[in-house]
């Protein structure tokens, strides 16, 4: 595993065994806000709507109970694509197979915090990872990546796939989110009840293609 950082200063993991590179953490609010500080059409009123569903936690004050508030959840797939385009042309939501590979790797690989400590990340990213490491005492990468199903604050990840006829792109959520999404290795993606459905448990991370 190798770690680098994206333009927001947050870690991108490159896993040679599975041949994939992706945001190590679900995309955080402080990352997304770097995108929002450019005049691209996402206004105060839009962000207020998101924060109503997913209240914001400051990366300087992370408590166990408020930890999920760090992450940019409550967001819709087409809104994710705005951020993806800004982050870089080669970033996109994972497909089902890719996500399952990531999930499998994270749940079966022993955590090694030394890896991210030299990855040249932003202050916010370092601070966040240090706090989370202390709070979670991770055994595998799945815990610090907020994937682990036994934790109540596990975050589901938006995934995309194409219809068999390759006409439409579909979006759903994979992850080990209790009472919602289930085991990504066994279950198909969860389909939200409506295209405008925002859920505090649904976040995203992007693949670097």
């Amino acid at each position: 595993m190798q770690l680098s950082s994206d333009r927001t200063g947050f870690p991108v993991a490159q896993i040679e065994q599975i041949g994939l590179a992706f945001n190590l953490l679900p995309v955080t609010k402080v990352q997304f806000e770097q995108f929002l500080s450019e005049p691209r059409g996402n206004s105060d009123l839009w962000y207020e709507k998101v924060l109503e569903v997913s209240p914001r936690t400051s990366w300087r004050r992370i408590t166990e109970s408020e930890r999920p508030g760090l992450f940019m959840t409550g967001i819709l797939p087409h809104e994710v694509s705005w951020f993806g385009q800004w982050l870089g042309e080669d970033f996109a939501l994972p497909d089902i197979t890719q996500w399952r590979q990531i999930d499998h790797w994270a749940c079966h690989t022993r955590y090694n915090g030394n890896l991210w400590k030299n990855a040249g990340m932003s202050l916010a990213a370092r601070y966040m990872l240090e706090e989370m490491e202390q709070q979670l005492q991770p055994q595998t990468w799945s815990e610090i990546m907020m994937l682990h199903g036994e934790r109540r604050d596990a975050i589901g990840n938006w995934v995309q796939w194409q219809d068999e006829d390759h006409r439409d792109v579909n979006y759903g959520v994979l992850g080990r989110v209790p009472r919602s999404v289930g085991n990504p290795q066994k279950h198909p993606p969860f389909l939200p009840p409506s295209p405008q459905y925002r859920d505090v448990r649904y976040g995203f991370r992007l693949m670097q293609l």
Partner: protein
Amino acid sequence: MANLTIALSDPAAIAKFSVHVEEVLVQRGQLTGQLRRTLNLEAQNLGIHYTDVDQVIAQVTKLPRIQAAFEEAAKKTACEIWLEFSGAQMSSLVLIVDASQSADTHWKTIHRYVSALIRRLQPLCRLQLFFLGNATPYNAAQFESHGNAWHEENNRRVSLITPVFTTLVNSGWSEKSPRILVFGAGSIFDLADWQDTAMLQASRFFCLGDYLTDGLCPEEETTVEHLFTRVCPPISQVVLGADGAIPFYWSNPAYSWEQGRLRFTPPEDKTPSTPAVRVRWLCAPEAVPQAAVTLQNGDLSYYEMVACPPVRAKWRWQSLTREEADHLRRQLDCPSSHENHPNYATLRDKRGIVLLRDSEKAEYCHLTCPSLRLGEESSVALWDNSTRQAEIFRFENHNWHRTGEVLSPFHQISENIYAVVL
């Protein structure tokens, strides 16, 4: 010396070199008349390879002969330097304006409020202007006219403080740096990321809507007048000077020389007055004049004065009456009548040092800066507003000293100009 072989044979090059040396030394406040003459001679007598003037100056000023000339000149003559206290050094402010959608219904109020504040602060403070969510600084002086266009430009940004604070941090903001005023309406979403930082502690939030900081920081609802007083508490006194520094000219007559310092006290009748001033100092080598500013709330702060271009001031001569002219000539003809300063009706309301000129007509000039260089460069008479006397100072052994003497009546300044004290 061997490496400085003769290369300045071209008179034009010598002249150019000399001018450049003078400019550099003037900027450093090191040029005196004697030194100027010495340097001109040296520039012509030394051979200097004229390729890099700055290197040449560095070399020349290290030469023992030049160093000796510096020291000799410094013993006898104070360095002349122009320094400015603009008042703007006193306070620098960062203004952060909310032009986001959540503040739309309050934009007119924000614009009016911030415009009024900038108008008041502009002469007194160095202002930096930002919009929430935008790292780019704007010109505060143009806010009143361009504010609405800038509102459009920033309206689609989200109310985030991090882009602005990050810019300030990257530009070297420290706890001693300017205070920050934020004007807005609607939540600033990322304020908590700066909790317990010096930057947030230096910030004041002015809520022009229903909420702004969501309880994270105190929000102030205030009038422009109240805010102005809070941000720029009125000055109670400004004192300029340093041991070993004598003012020879100052551009603001609201200052007066008292007890060895230049002092500014705002008028009690509250007529508008500014402490901004440019001063021509005659300084001992180590003297660094500074400004001590006392505010009406008792705070005392010290500020550096900064180098400024000289002010070209001319003596303004006005005529005496025919009777006064006759009287002046009689006094000048009779040395025994020089014991008293004259008592002319024209000069009745004048205080300080007045010059009298007897040429084709008799004239007077009331020095708005009652400071007068006497003879050579080493003596200065300064009118002290507290003692009502023009005390004489002399520069000896690298420093100014009180002589205990005062300017005598009809002190001859030049062939036909005399100084008197009223």
